[in-house]
């Protein structure tokens, strides 16, 4: 398990990370979400050791990170970059060799990985001749080629079409299933919601919340219920303790306490055939908006 304890970092006097603590478990895709400038990239660069923290520790399976344990990390930086004029198979081989693989092993791995990412016909092409999406796949190969135990990916899906997202996702899931810890950042909340079971939310350099996706959804935002029925549902509007979000004659979406919701359901059953009744958990965007709204309130109060 990768754990961060109270990581702080300032840039020229301005503190950008405040006691950042969270953990990411092996075998899981952990999403790291936050707005622009929230501190995602800085945190990731500190995990990788390309940036030093001012204070705090990072441990892997309980022991502090060393050059040796970090050599088992894979990294995809936020700003993409490899050698533009180098052939893609050659540069992935080169990176594998820098991680300590023998020449033959490195060549074999680079080719297999690029083929599995759908770049079979481009192996001897220079990076700069590839489309943006394909360059992105090469970038992912660069992070994966040494079969890292820990994968740190900064915005791996930005700029990819849905087909490419699926291909990359499949490779990442394979890595997680093989026991790797995968942490990736994104501001595309719908993508994160679809992919990750574990979430870490950061805002303004502070960890706002972390945990399982369902837990987070239950903990944050108001619980809503959706009710559909044969009979006209306009009566729901007059129920006490019920706040209507959307209403059509046969469908109603409302917020209320759980007991009130059950009262509504009982009433609905009496009045006609209930086709469906289900609680609707808030999605990530809503949770995220709630955090941002809190912040705005605080700012307004201050």
């Amino acid at each position, binding site marked *: 398990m990768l754990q961060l304890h109270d990581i702080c970092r300032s840039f020229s006097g301005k503190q950008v990370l405040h006691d950042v603590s969270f953990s990411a478990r092996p075998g899981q895709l952990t999403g790291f979400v936050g707005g622009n400038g929230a501190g995602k990239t800085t945190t990731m660069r500190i995990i990788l050791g390309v940036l030093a923290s001012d204070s705090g520790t990072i441990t892997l399976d309980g022991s502090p990170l060393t050059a040796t344990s*970090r050599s088992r990390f894979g990294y995809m*930086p936020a700003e993409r*970059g*490899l050698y533009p004029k180098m052939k893609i198979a050659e540069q992935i081989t080169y990176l594998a060799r*820098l*991680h*300590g693989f023998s020449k033959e092993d490195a060549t074999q791995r680079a080719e297999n*990985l690029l083929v599995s990412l759908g770049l079979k016909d481009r192996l001897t092409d220079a990076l700069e001749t590839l489309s943006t999406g394909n360059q992105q796949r090469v970038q992912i190969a660069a992070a994966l080629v040494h*079969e890292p135990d820990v994968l740190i990916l900064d915005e791996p899906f930005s700029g990819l079409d849905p087909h490419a997202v699926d291909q990359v996702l499949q490779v990442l899931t394979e890595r997680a299933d093989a026991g790797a810890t995968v942490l990736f950042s994104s501001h595309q909340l719908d993508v994160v919601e679809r992919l990750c079971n574990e979430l870490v939310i950061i805002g303004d350099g502070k960890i706002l919340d972390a945990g399982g996706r369902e837990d987070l959804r239950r903990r944050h935002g108001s619980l809503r219920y959706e009710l559909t029925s044969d009979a006209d549902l306009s009566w729901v509007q007059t129920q006490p303790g019920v706040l209507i979000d959307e209403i059509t004659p046969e469908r109603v979406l409302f917020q209320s306490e759980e007991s009130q919701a059950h009262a509504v359901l009982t009433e609905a059953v009496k009045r006609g055939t209930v086709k469906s009744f289900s609680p609707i958990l808030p999605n990530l965007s809503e949770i995220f908006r709630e955090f941002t709204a809190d912040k705005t309130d605080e700012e307004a109060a201050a």
Partner: protein
Amino acid sequence: MSVESQETNAPQSPLSTTAAARLVAGREIHTQVRSKPFVISTLVTVVLIIGGFIALGFMGGDDEDEVPVAAVELPAEHQQMLEETNFEVTQAGSMDEAEQLLQDGDVDVIAAFDEESYIQIQLIGLDELPMTEAQNLSVMPTMDVLDGDAEDSDILYFVAMAFGLIYMLVAMGSGMIIMQNTIQEKQNRIVEILLSAISAKALLAGKILGNSIVALGQFLTMAVASVVGMAVSGQLEYLEMLTWPMAWFLVFFIPGFLLVASVFAATASLVSRQEDSGSVMTPAMMLVMAPYIVALFGLNNDLVMTVASYVPFTSPVAMSVRLFDGSTAWFEPLLSMGILVITTVLVMALAARIYSGALLHTGQRVKLSQALKSEN
């Protein structure tokens, strides 16, 4: 991509600095040697050098040609003297006939009998005194100089220019490539990926090593081209004279170039965009041009050359020129070499600190003090 393959094949420890530096150096060499501009410029240089020697050979051969002369009423012994001293004699029956030959351009000069002359020959030119032709007939004493070897100053000048120019061209070329590569790696952030695998020291060492090997290769190519040029144009007698100074130049070139490469790499690590390179590269460029400028303007000033032969950045050229000139005591090149090596080691250590400190700072230009203070 199975768990097994990871456990059996994945190396469990990072590469040693040496092994990583060797890989980086290998990539630098590979990339450069295969780039078209590099291959073309090397070929052009080789052709220019060989061509230059051949051209020199032809120019030297010009005065071997015989001078056509019209002889008027010359005794046989005088005619024989003309023939032995590189004249092609045409008999003219009278002065009028000879003048006609000269007017028509059939001969360059008229030779007539003249009792007042020491050798009893008068040379008559068309519209100016035939000084060049007269030199064929002049007698020269043997010559030597008291101080140093008898190499004439033309050759010394040529050697100084050649050393200065070769050093500047090779160092500047490779320095610019180091600079561009470093900035490129920083600009497109591949440096973050590289540094997550290997240390900044290994990256810097590999970069300097790789480019120094390429530069040394270029230098040797130029040296071989010079020898070929001399051989083809029949001027191998210069080779003997040049062997030792060239060998010394090579020995000085190696630490000298490592020094230049370190300065360029450290300088480049301060900026993150190619467009900004101009703002930091001036000092490095001046250091590379200094030896040439010293050779160009200080060649005849013993004090300047002596001082320059101990100053680390100018010593590779200045000391080699002084060695060619023969004006050094035996310990001087060794002392100068010692100073150069120590400076190189110190500058490399400093460059490593700047490089590590500045490499991951992107955006604005990093101040030198900031890079030295920064731990990461």
